[in-house]
């Protein structure tokens, strides 16, 4: 029962939400009764009641066997009929009557200044009250819904944002996503082989959330693009939500690093959605991403960059939304990668929206500036649940994509780019020099040994000569002694000396 729109208007208006009201009326699924009372045609004389309305409703319910009744907006009766007292009593009777009829009734009403409904009546007689409102923050409006009361249930008490688009109303109870998602153990490649190696040789966990952060121009988008490309190569659907570039611009730019996005888009493996963050409220973005994930069913979702959400916005709110988003994507088993812009001049570990605790893997890209050139460095700040490299890597963005190279880390610190190359050349020269030195030393030792050998031989010869001379002297001395004693004996014989003395002396000599 419509109090504000005629049947014709109603049919036209709900068609934009995807409802075929005309068809439903024709097949007797819905009966529409447009109640219209011109205030200035009506004069009240004496007491009245709304029996006619009851009869109309009853007839309509009976003709199609309705189970549900919608009264939109009952309040307009108050503006078109005099005597509020009677109306209030009749309204109360109407609610009771609908209940007795056994139909579920949805009754709309405007909210009052201090009360939920303008007449302060409906919320008391209803079993369930749902409050809709629209709030405007930073010139962006978002619709919200809250269940004020629902008799006999444990209902959610929070305010939930909702969306009205061509598919009707989308409401996703985002806060219901808890921390009980199933962890997935499969791994996915990052699209950069050496980065996979750094991540325990296998890449990221499927269903994890990965953040790539860095200052401007560090190549965040290129990393995301590689990840997207790797997903497409595995024939997985990828949803790329870009908040700063248009789809064609992304496709063009990625072509320069050898990634053909147009091809993947044609194969329906990649969908690039470009949305300005300021276009909708935060909640709306969340719902839209959720809707896209539900309809497109991607395995990988990429958000580039999430920091654009926090422009002029409450960072706490941004974190809350991202938390919900991360929870949602995890519950769907979707691997999410987002980039985060670090403002230059701040410590690189400062993640702008402080969602570092939400992400499973965090790759930090940074500028390494020295010797008048800027080079790009990368390291894995954290990666939950896997052994990951602690090395700083330099990476180059070439026309074949991102390539990782080792940085020079030696006595003079970490060097990259030109400095790394020159240092490597310098090291090579030093190596060469060292080698020559070693060879020289070898020769020197050899020489010295030869000299030593020669000296030894000379000394040996000298010694041999002296030895021979000495031996000769000794034998000569012996000979002389024998000769002397023989001579003495001969002389004694000649002198005819005492024989005893003679024999003793002879004995001594023979010894």
């Amino acid at each position, binding site marked *: 029962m419509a109090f504000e729109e005629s049947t014709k208007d109603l049919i036209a208006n709900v068609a934009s939400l995807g409802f075929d009201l005309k068809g439903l009326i024709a097949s007797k699924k819905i009966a529409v009764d447009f109640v219209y009372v011109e205030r200035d045609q*009506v004069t*009240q*004389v*004496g007491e*009245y009641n709304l029996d*006619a309305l009851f009869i*109309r409703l009853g*007839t309509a319910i009976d003709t199609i066997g309705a189970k549900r009744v919608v009264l939109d907006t009952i309040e307009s009766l108050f503006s078109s009929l005099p005597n509020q007292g009677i109306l209030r009593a009749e309204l109360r009777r109407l609610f009771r009557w609908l209940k007795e009829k056994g139909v579920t009734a949805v009754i709309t009403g405007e909210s009052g200044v201090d009360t939920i409904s303008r007449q302060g009546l409906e919320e008391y007689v209803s079993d369930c009250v749902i409050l809709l409102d629209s709030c405007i923050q930073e010139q962006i409006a978002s619709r919200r819904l809250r269940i004020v009361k629902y008799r006999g249930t444990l209902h959610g008490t929070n305010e939930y944002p909702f969306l009205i688009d061509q598919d009707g109303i989308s409401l996703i109870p985002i806060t219901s996503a808890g921390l009980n998602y199933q962890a997935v153990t499969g791994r996915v490649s990052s699209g950069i082989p050496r980065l996979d190696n750094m991540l325990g040789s296998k890449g990221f966990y499927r269903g994890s959330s990965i953040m790539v952060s860095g200052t401007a121009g560090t190549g965040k988008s290129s990393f995301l693009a590689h990840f997207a490309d790797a997903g497409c190569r595995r024939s997985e659907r990828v949803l790329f939500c870009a908040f700063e570039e248009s789809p064609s611009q992304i496709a063009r730019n990625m072509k320069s690093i050898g990634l053909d996005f147009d091809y993947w888009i044609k194969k329906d493996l990649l969908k690039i959605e470009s949305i300005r963050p300021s276009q909708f409220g935060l909640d709306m973005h969340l719902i839209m991403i959720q809707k896209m994930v539900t309809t497109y069913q991607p395995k990988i979702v990429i958000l580039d960059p999430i920091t654009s959400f926090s422009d002029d916005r409450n960072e706490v709110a941004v974190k809350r939304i991202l938390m919900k988003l991360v929870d949602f994507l995890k519950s769907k088993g979707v691997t999410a990668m987002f980039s985060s812009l670090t403002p230059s001049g701040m410590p690189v570990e400062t993640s702008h929206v402080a969602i570092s605790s939400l992400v499973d893997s965090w790759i930090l890209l940074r500028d390494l500036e020295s010797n008048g050139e800027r080079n790009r460095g990368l390291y894995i700040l954290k990666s939950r649940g896997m052994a990951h490299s602690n090395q700083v890597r330099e990476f180059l963005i070439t026309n074949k994509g991102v390539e990782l190279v080792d940085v020079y880390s030696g006595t003079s610190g970490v060097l990259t780019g030109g400095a790394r190359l020159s240092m490597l050349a310098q090291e090579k020269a030093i190596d060469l020099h060292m080698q020559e030195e070693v060879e020289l030393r070898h020769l020197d030792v050899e020489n010295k040994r030869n000299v030593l050998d020669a000296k030894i031989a000379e000394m040996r010869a000298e010694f041999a000569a002296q030895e021979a001379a000495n031996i000769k002297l000794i034998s000569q001395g012996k000979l002389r002694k024998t000769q002397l004693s023989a001579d003495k004996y001969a002389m004694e014989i000649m002198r005819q000396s005492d024989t005893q003395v003679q024999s003793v002396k002879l004995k001594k000599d023979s010894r």
Partner: protein
Amino acid sequence: MTDKSIDLRVRPKKVSAKATKAKKYILRLYVAGSTPRSMAAISNIKKICDEKLAGFYLLEVIDLYQQPLLAAGHQIIAIPTLIKELPPPLRRIIGDLSDTEKVLVGLDLKAL
């Protein structure tokens, strides 16, 4: 407030132009069953018509319990409702019609 002031300006003209009794009055009274209020409304309007519009009126009493579909067709929500179909403008009077003066004003039979 503005509505009323417009009414006041318009009404005297119409009263002088249309309430000439040259035209016939067609009145419909919608009731629901024979409740005391319905009965009172019926007797009240009959009395007024006989007194002021004798011979110039057609009064039809419709019981919505008997003809429920007419309620939607004629945009009736309150009971009892008296509708002055002719002469124009169309007027609706809701209630038991107990105040004759007010009914006459409502039927453009008497200026305010």
